[in-house]
């Protein structure tokens, strides 16, 4: 059990890292991008903007809550 918890914790830290909003934001940005691409709605413009928004949100959280910085 200890090894399984350690294994899962390693992958959580590796992929999710310091701030879970980045991983969730990346999934949402790509999912919405795929939807927009199917309806030919300028998905190429959306993706860079979405990444910028996720970064702003993550940095804002880090600035407001020192625990979320590292």
């Amino acid at each position, binding site marked *: 059990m200890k090894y399984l918890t350690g294994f899962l914790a390693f992958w959580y830290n590796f992929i999710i890292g310091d701030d879970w909003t980045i991983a969730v934001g*990346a999934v949402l940005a*790509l999912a919405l991008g795929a939807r927009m*691409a199917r309806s030919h709605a300028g998905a190429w413009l959306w993706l*860079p903007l979405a990444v*910028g928004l996720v970064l702003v949100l993550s940095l804002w959280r880090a600035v407001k809550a020192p625990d979320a910085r590292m």
Partner: protein
Amino acid sequence: MFLILASFLASAVETVEALTIVLAVGITRGWRSVRLGVLAALGALTALVAALGPALTLIPIGVLRLVVGFLLLVFGMQWLRKAILRASGFVPLHDEAAVFEREMALAREAGPADRAGMDWYAFTLSFKGVFLEGTEVAFIVLTFGGTPGGIKLAAIGAAAAVLLVSATGVLVSRPLSRVPENTLKFAVGLMLTTFGVFWGGEGAGVDWPGADGALVAILAFLTVCSLILVASLSRYRRQQGAVAALRGG
């Protein structure tokens, strides 16, 4: 070229961090077990890339690009976030000299752990240092396998960085504290995020105007956004400091 450079810079940053741990343990506790720990970690990382690399070819290219794009986006934005927080002063800059001193003190305090002629403390610490710092690089190299010939180019970049940083570290026998680590992290974060947006977008069915040329436009956009964020956060931090000083005084 862009791909080799991204892989080279990412590997250089991680190698500098691993080198600090290896040097601290080696100087304090002797080199034999440390050398074995480093070799074992490099072997484990090579096995990881060799095992997962060919498996990537079995995944349909669209799905692969989406997964690779997601991973690069996540890694890239994490690096970029940390670099922006450091550049704006919210998080102290990474100090390799301080890490080196701390690791040396810990290695001195740890009691002797000799068994069968091996110092297992030194072995484990150097193995963990190299393997953990190297795993991210191994995954970056693997994710670049999503493009034709990408894995080879990324591996060349990574190998060149590991050789260059290790050789320099061995020559000077001190941690490479003069390497502008935050600037490198900033550049790598921008490159990984750019590739993540591009490949993730292709995997999601996005048709990029100008095909590969869109990479340059995405990179330029993200660079401008990041610099604006650094400037805004620095200004906000100064204002917060001024308000705190007024309240205190």
